[in-house]
């Protein structure tokens, strides 16, 4: 029995962590670790950085090839892909967000971890409203880059 099958959230040990260098460049981190029959991320990648042996395999990102474009973030049916990037002491995360209302550019939001706990404050840098899944880019302190995976608006509009 795996711990995430009981709790519903991954621990850092379950994830292929990008190196400092990869994070500086900005890469897609896929938190999809079960063999489920699904492969749209592979097709969505413009540089063929995501590979799967067959449709049930776990997707593997080649962080050397990935350009962090985020196309896979909005296509993933499991909303399980996040683009992670660090600039000096800042962490920049692009995450899927399928809720209304959307935050505004520059708005401060609660940054939540995989359990939905508030861990820090985030500032919205970009909103890409799309037909598939809207993606939001936020800026947080660099040290939370492997923790923050969701946002919550500070004010109920």
């Amino acid at each position, binding site marked *: *029995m795996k711990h*995430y*099958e*009981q*709790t*519903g*959230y*991954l621990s850092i040990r379950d994830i292929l962590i990008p190196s400092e260098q990869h994070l500086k460049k900005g890469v897609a981190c896929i*938190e*999809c*670790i*079960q*063999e*489920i*029959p*699904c*492969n*749209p991320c592979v*097709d*969505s990648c413009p540089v063929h950085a995501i590979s799967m042996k*067959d*449709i*049930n395999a776990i997707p593997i990102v080649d962080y050397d090839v990935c350009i962090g474009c985020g196309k896979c973030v909005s*296509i*993933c*049916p*499991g*909303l*399980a892909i996040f683009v992670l990037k660090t600039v000096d002491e800042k962490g920049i995360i692009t995450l899927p967000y*399928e*809720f*209304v*209302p959307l935050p505004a550019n520059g708005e401060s939001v609660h940054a*939540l*971890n*995989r*359990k*939905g*706990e508030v861990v820090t404050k985030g500032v919205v840098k970009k909103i890409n409203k799309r037909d*598939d*899944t*809207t993606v939001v880019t936020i800026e947080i302190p660099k040290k939370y880059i492997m923790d923050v*995976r*969701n946002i*919550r608006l500070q004010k109920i509009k």
Partner: protein
Amino acid sequence: MRGGLPLRIKDHPILSFDWQESLPFTFNGKKLKGYTGDSIAAALHANGITTFSTSLKYHRPRGFFCGIGKCSSCLMEVNGQPNIRTCITPLQANISVTQQDSKAAWPKNATNSFYPPQQKNVDILIIGAGPAGLEAAIAAASLGAHVLLVDENTHIGGQLVKQTHKFFGSKQEKAGTRGISIADQLNQQLQKPPINKRVDLLLNATVFGYYEDNNNKFYTFGVIKRKEYTTIHYKIRCKSVIFAVGAMENMLLFPGNDLPGVYGAGAVQTLMNVYGVQPGKRMLMVGAGNVGLIVSYQLLQAGIDVACVVEAAPIIGGYHVHAAKLRRHGIPILTRHSIKEVLGKEKVEGAIITTLDEHWQPIPGSDQTISCDTVCLAVGLTPSTRLLSQMHVQMNTIPEAGGFVALHDHTMQTSQPRVYVAGDTSGIEEASTAMIEGKIAGISAALSLGHTKKDAEKTRQQFIDELDQLHAGPFGQKPRQAKQRIARHWRKNYETL
């Protein structure tokens, strides 16, 4: 309360609802307001009415449970006609709806003018216009067969029309596309020539019985079409039939499980995603399979709070990615927990959950009271198979398939010649595999009648292989075992076929 429409969804990240055109109607003589596109039950629910009828013996309140015309708890009297399934009957202006207390009397203004039935002869009758039935119709018509597609609902698409999430699977099977968009795409394919000339649609209609025909080339079915609270009968004679009738929601035993406010997962999705009505304000979800997890997330998107998800098994049964979406919004998923009791007299006012030990037994003293106004049961589905039984198709209980199913081979052929199954009725799975099975059944039915095209059999084999691929992973184990057991029974009985 928002603008006088407390339960109507105004803002939604995926769907848009229009609350412009209102329709007046009465309930027990009281004037109420619904909207164009509402079902009667949805309009009542949005007005805060939760009791639609009462039980036969103890006159306990009954609300709606399944929301898709399969249970009987929403039967009401509409314009003097009793036993109307209000969950699938569209609301019309100025109708009079009355709560039905247990059994109804024969209506005073009953008319029988539409009998004797109209007769129709078709190549292939397809029962159910969900993902399996639609793909079957398109596949069979593409090979030149004439198809009659019958569905109980006022719209095609079956359960696809409430699937706001993006589908998994491969690109060929529309992965990454939301179910609601897949329903639109299939509808567009139906409208294209020559498909549109070969497929007749009969909506709002129920296939209610199978009848012997003197001519053994044909199968005869009785169909009843509802129109303006009255009915038209059809006698349908077909050379081949495809059952794509789907499944029914499972019930769970606990005190209060019949109270209004305890819904099946399909009902919750129907209310919020089809009619834009919030089922409640705070939901307790029972079951952490994919359905329970996906519907919980859809509840959050519709602005409804989810108290927690309880799951009796020691592990979350659905995909981790679905569980992760809920957890990062702070929704607890409690494995080894079950619902013990629902609180309330007229409707749900709370629930008690309990912890289970490794033998699935409640641990004394572990009860917790959950504050909620609604409970959603996502505890599996049972294939709908009664017409197949009536036809004497060979059936067997296959637990991995969800219960009693028709034995069938890899071409979806049952024990009766030219009778096919596809989708949940052939074993519980999900829409992606239902669509592939529909294509296989559609091709098989057309081939059995001599309609063919170059490479038709090769195409069918490709779909069969694709289905095997989708079943190859660990989550495909259960459907794979189901199909293997069905194949074993099939070989034992029909090796010579």
